[in-house]
Every structure is written in structure tokens, then in C-alpha cells.
């Protein structure tokens, strides 16, 4: 299911993860990343349909790429994604991780969602 970037804080940073970009990315880099990943998916390049998140690997398709690109091209939505951005490689432990499907509930609780182990 495609995350609702604007309404779900836990998922707000997904567009950066989907496109493997950081908050410094310019529009031309966003477009290029979306296009290049899609081309690789079309060519069935191994691993092209996967991306890393702080809570593990997830899959991407053309819908998710398009939505991620669009989210980062919308200044308001992008700001939120920047707000919630954490580099997947920086995360070691997520308190409460492993509770599949509970991310959304925890996201309602900012105390819980902020329990990133540092």
C-alpha cells in the first residue's frame, strides 16, 4: 500500500528513502533519480525494486516512485519529509521495531516514535 506522505509522520520521509536521496537534493536530481530507478526496474536490474528504510528493506514500483517524486517536488510535503528524515544507515535500533503493523499506532504517539536509539 502506498504510504500517505502528508498524514502519516512515520512515513513522511519515505520519498527520500524511495529515491535514495538526501534532503539536499535539487529538483533535477529528484527527476533523474526517479527516472533512472524506473528504468532499472523496467530492465529488471536485481535489487532495483528494493530500497532501504530505517526499519528494513521495502519494495518500490512505478507508482511509489512517481508519488515520491511528486512529494519531493511539492514544497510543503517536502518540508515534512525533511522534518522526519533520518538516514536509514544512521539507525541502529528502533524502539518498538518488530511490531509489524504497529508503526502507524506508534506514529500517533510522538513520545514513542521519537525513541530512536542514539
Amino acid at each position, binding site marked *: *500500500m502506498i504510504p500517505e506522505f502528508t498524514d502519516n*509522520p512515520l512515513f513522511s520521509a519515505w520519498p527520500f528513502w524511495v529515491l535514495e536521496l538526501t534532503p539536499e537534493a535539487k*529538483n533535477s536530481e529528484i527527476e533523474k533519480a526517479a527516472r533512472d530507478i524506473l528504468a*532499472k526496474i523496467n*530492465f529488471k536490474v536485481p535489487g532495483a525494486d528494493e530500497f532501504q528504510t530505517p526499519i528494513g528493506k521495502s519494495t518500490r514500483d512505478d*507508482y511509489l516512485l512517481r508519488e515520491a517524486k511528486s512529494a519531493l517536488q511539492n514544497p510543503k510535503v517536502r518540508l515534512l519529509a525533511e*522534518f522526519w528524515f533520518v538516514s536509514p544507515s544512521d539507525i541502529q535500533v528502533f524502539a518498538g521495531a518488530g511490531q509489524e503493523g*504497529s508503526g502507524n499506532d506508534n506514529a500517533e504517539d*510522538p*513520545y514513542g516514535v521519537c525513541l530512536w536509539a542514539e
Partner: protein
Amino acid sequence: MSQSKYIGIDLGTSNSAVSVFDGDEVKTLVNARGEINTPSVVRVKGGSITVGAKAQKHLHSDSKNTFKEFKRLMGTQSQSEPDDNGKRWLPEELSSEVLKALKAQVERQENCQFDKVVITVPALFELPQSKATAEAARMAGFKQVELLPEPVASGLSSGWSEQEAGAAWLIYDLGGGTFDVSLIESRDGLLRVIGHDGDNFLGGRDIDRTIVNWLIEQLVETEGLQLDHKHSDYSSVIRHFESAAENAKIKLSTLEHSVIELEFEYDNEDYEVDIALTRDELKTLCAPIIDRSIQICQRLLSAQGLQLEQLKRVVLVGGPAHMPIVQSAVQEKLAPLAQTDHDPMCLVANGAALYAATINLGCEPAADTDKADEREHQLWLQYPSVCTELNPTIMGRVIDESIKLSQVQICTQDGSWQSPMIPVDDSNIFMLEVSVKAGGKSSFIINGFDQNRQAIDLAYQAVHIVHGITISDPPLSRSIGLALADGSVKTFIDRGTPLPAKRSFAQSTIETLVPGSGQKLQIPIVQGERKQARFCRKVGVLVIDAAELKAPLPVGATIEITIEVDRGGDMRSQAFLPQQNKIIHGVAQLFLAKPELSALKTLSQNINTRMSSQLQQAFRSRDESALGVLNPLTQRLQLLLPELLSMADDVDGLQRISRELMEIESELELFESREQLSELMEECEMAYFGTDDMVKEYGRDTDKRVMQSCAKQFEQAMQNPRQGDIERLIERLNQVYHSAYKNKPEFWADVFQRWASHAHAARDPVRADKLVRQGNEAVARKEYGRLQAITNELYDLIPEQQKSQQGDNYDSGIY
């Protein structure tokens, strides 16, 4: 090598046009009469069909077989009166005839078979209208169809060569039958639609009809004639009047005075009447229509939180938009007009063709002198036709297994640049970043080599990359949702979501469905932004037929519904019944229901009564702000009431009035619930100031930037309060508050206290007790780093069930 060509069609209510983009320039084609506009008129005579000016000539003399303005009825399932052959035409069938004519024209002139096309539609077309347009294109022989909102096309076309970055423009598109307005900005090579609004039933035809009604009034006064324009006996006369009115309207664009010459038959008597009309009189007649369009523009600016001063300019699109009375109103009430060298009549079609290039929707010419193109392509290439970056990637895969490609070299066609040798990997894939000319077109050739570095003659598609402005995916104009049993709307796809989009949600049934019972579970599909279904437009229905079930579906059973909307306006849907492990496909049927005249009359009376009651109260309490809201609503309603009383079976008119009544009722209801809104505003105010303090003290840079964005939204929400916007803002403020709060040194003390209150339920109570004691010590000594580690360990000891209960109880504040 052949070069792809891209076509875009402006399928208008009154006129249509087709443009071609060849990678270098975009041009609108002229038809056999040397005109760029082909009237959207279809005539059926015997077995032959004519389209355009030839058909238009017969509008009055053969009105039974000649059809116009069918675009206004797209998606309504309303059929024409039978022609001489007894056939009743659907609007999409007539539109497909216009598209066939344009397709034939462009194929003849460009010597190319076009089976892919971008067609423009009004920004606020609802799903059934979009789907009908895509269906018309398929009937005309197009295999791949993408739809683009008309104002976006105009923006792309007028912004293609623009250098102004970051400026907001308004695209004011007053067409024959529809009015669209879009707010766009160009930044960092991307043209983005900030928002749009419009009215599907407001256009130049309304100006013509206003003039016709005025003519009928003049004939009552001067000749004593009682022409009932709804009576079928006078349909031919009225069409003649409409044509005369349109001519007068066009003449008054350049002249101050015009004389309308009417020749018609009434009660078996011939009449020849000349009626003078001045530009000032026309201005007075059209004022309500133009004012309505300006109000829609102001509503859009307000919704986007833009002041008039921030609007750089207005681009006018469409014939009626270029009437001097419209131009002066726009300049006076909105912003200066764009000084553009683009022909306003070509903007939409040109934009559609340019968009086709940005999404690689091109066709290759049939004949080409280069032999390489006559072979099957041996490479599958992926590259952007249009891009904003100067270093796009060309990626390729060998699809002809008979060639043993080991390396490739990519060169510009003019020989000015060549890449190093690029290896082809084990999966037969190669990729390389190339450099393109800024603001221009770059063409590339690919040289192939085998493992002995011997050249291989390759057949592949031409590679042309244009560096220029691109456009974000067209956004969904109105949210799509399902009407639930309690009258509320469950939004599936939000307004602004880029298309195509797909969403899944689980819902529960409220009645039992038994196979063989003949029952059908119906769930209305609505489009609109209100939370109550009755204020949104019903655009279709999801149907789950009991006959398709394996077993009875009890009350409360879960149904997972997936809806997918593509850029061609099509909707695919499926319902998954987990209990029966069954998927039912194609459960959505799209249509625009025809409004019932009697229901509209009842609704208008109901609104009138409620409005009168609110007005009385406002007068009694001398509430000026309430009167400021109610008076314009009353005026809008008063304009509709007489029209509604004289309305017959006019589908177009009923749709227009239905929409207007829905908008008036929606605004009235908002006014009636203003006390509730006032409480929500107070809550928002408290949240805003509390968060602002917290962010100022403890927020990071990103928190502060989000807070600045919230500040703008807060200002807008206080000026133009809307329940949904305020609720979303409060939620956002809470998130920012907590993000800043966690930077406060005492944050971990609070989190520790929270989980310490659950220590009694810990899996290892002894260890938990010890951690609580250590935590309390750390709090007392302000050792927050240590406290964080203690809290994390304590958290791990608390059972998941307890944690989830904690989440549920968060709002109650009970730990």
C-alpha cells in the same frame, strides 16, 4: 534514424485544435480551410459524417442531424434526439468523430500514424467526464491516451521558454463551455501546478445565451413576440439567435457597437429584425458571468494563501477570455495580463504536445530514408525526451540475442562529443550519463562493438534529448471517496495526488449478503472535498453482487477495496473478501447521475428557507460579518430560482444548477456551524502559540522551518477558516511541538515517568523495579544520557499489549 513526433489535442466545447512537437518546435496544424480551429460540430447525413466548419453551416438548416456542444454532456449518459436514421448519439461518440477528423488531418500532414495522444480536459472534469473523453479517443483509433488539464497545458505552453523563476501566474481559461483557472509556478526547471479551481458549466456559451435571452426580451417589447426558448418548435430559431449572438459578441471585441440582424419565422410569418447592441450593454449583461469567474480566481488565491500582490501575471486562454470586457475586469480585479507572443488559440494544444514529449508518448513517422529504421530495433533504450538536468542517463538493453554486444560508445550526432567505451554487463545492460546542450536539443548515436572491438551495425530508436522545463504529474482535481452508511465520506485518493494513483482500504458491511438472493451491495463513489457525502458529487457506484459470493457475507464483514485511477481518467477497482478469499474485479461503475428537476426545486426551497432564517437573525443582531457572508449567497440563489422554475428537461442546465445549489448549501452549512468552528479556532490558537514557544526554545532548524510554514497556514486559517484545514493544522502543530519537546533536557525524564508507571506489568518486575529506582536517581541528578539508556531498557521489559493499550489511552492522559 527517425525522430519521434508528439501530438496534443485541445478538444474544446466550441472548437478543437491539434498540435505537433518534433523535439525542436511545436506548431498547431491548420485544417483544409487554413484555420487552426476546427469547430466541434458534427453532422450526420445518410451514411456520411462531416466535422467542423462544413457541419457548422447546417446548424440551423438541419439542426436534427447537426450536433454541437456535446462536450458539456460528457459522462452523463445523456443521448441526443434521434437523427434522420433514428440513431441517438452519446456525447463520447460525437467527440470521437471530432477526434477522428483531427487524427486524419495530422496523419495526412505529418505522414505518420499516430496512435498515442495527449488530450486536454477542463481541470475540474470529474471522473466520468474524463473517462468518457478517453473512451472517445479510443473509439477514434488512439491506443494510448493521456489526459492533461487545460490550464496546465496552457501554462506549460506559455512557460516553455520563460526564464522567470518562482513567480506565480494565474491561467484564466474561459472556453466555450467551461471555465478553468490554475495557479502555477516555475522553479528549478519544474512547472508546478499549485492549485486549480473552476466551473464545468461556465463559459462563452453562457454569454451567448445571456445575449439570446436579452434578444428574446427585446422581441417581446418591440414586436410582441412570445418566443419560448425551451419549446422544441423554436429550437431552430434559437440556434439562429445563438449564432447571431456569438457573432455580435465577437464583433464587440473590436467595435463599440454592433447590429444583430435576425431573420426568422414565427407563427408562419417571416420576420427581419435588426437589434443594436453596444459594448457597454454587453458588459452589463455579462457582469454576473464575469464576476463569477473572478470570484473563482479569488477563491483559488485565498485557498493557496496568496495575496493579489504576489500574483505576477495572468495568462488568458480561450476565445471568450479575449473579449475586452473580460480583459479589463481581469486587469482591474486580479493582475496585469501576460505579454505573450504565443497565439492564445494555440496554447492548449501546444501544451498538450509538449507534455506528450515529457512523458515519452511519441510516434515515429511511417516513412524514413534511413535503412536502420526498417529493421526491428535490437536495443531497448530508456532516456528522457525532455529533462531538466544537464547529465541525463541513457540506459539500454540488448533485446536481439543474435548480436553479441560487448561494448558501446555513445556520441553526439554532430560529432562534438564521444563517450569512452562502456561495457555491456552480463544482463545485457549498459548505462551512461551524457551531457546535453542547455536549453536545446541534443541527438546521440550509439556505436556497438563485439568482444574483439569489431563494430556491429545496430538498429535502435533515435535518441533525442531536449533540455527544458518539465512538468509535475497532473494532480487529481477533486478527492475521490466512498459515501459511508453514516453519510460521511471515506476519502480514498486526495485532491492533488499525482495520477496515476492507487489506494486500498478496508471497510465493513452493514447488511448481510446472501448468494442467490439477488441482492447487490451498493457503495456510492463521490468526488469533492467535504466530509459529508451529500455535498460531494456522486460520480459512480461500487457494486458487489451477491451472485458472485461463495457463501453469505455477514454484517460487519471486511471488504478490502482497491481503486486505481490512471491519467486517462479511467478507474479500475476490485473488492477483496478476506473471509472468502475472493476477489471481485471491476466493481466500480462511473456515471454522472442526472439531477431530478423536482428534487432541485425542493432543495432550492429548503436552502431559501434556511437562508431567510439566518438573514433575519443577522439583521436582528446587526451582525455585519454574518451579512457579509449571507448576502452574496442570497444573490447567487436568487439568480438560480427563476431559472429553475422555467427549466425543462435540459441536462446541461440541470447539472449546472445542481452544482451551484450544492456549493451554496455547502457554504450555508459552514456558516450555520460557525460556533463549532469558533471553538476549533480557539484550540488551534492555543496549539499554535504553545508550539511556537516550544520551537523557539528547543526546536532544530527543520522544526523552525516547519513552524514558519505552520505560521502561514495559521494566518490563512484565521482569515479563511475551514474545518478540515484547521484540524490538519492542529495535528501538524502537535507533531512539531513534540519534535521540539524531545530536544528539551527534561524530555527523557517525562518519557521515563511514562514507562515507569507501567513497571508493574513488566515481564521481569524485579529488574523493572531496580530500573525505576535507578531512573529516579538519574532524574534527580539530571543525568539524562544515563536516563535514556535506562528508559530504553525499561521499555523493552514492558509487554507489547501494555504498550498498545498505552497508545490507545494517549488521548485520555491516564498513564
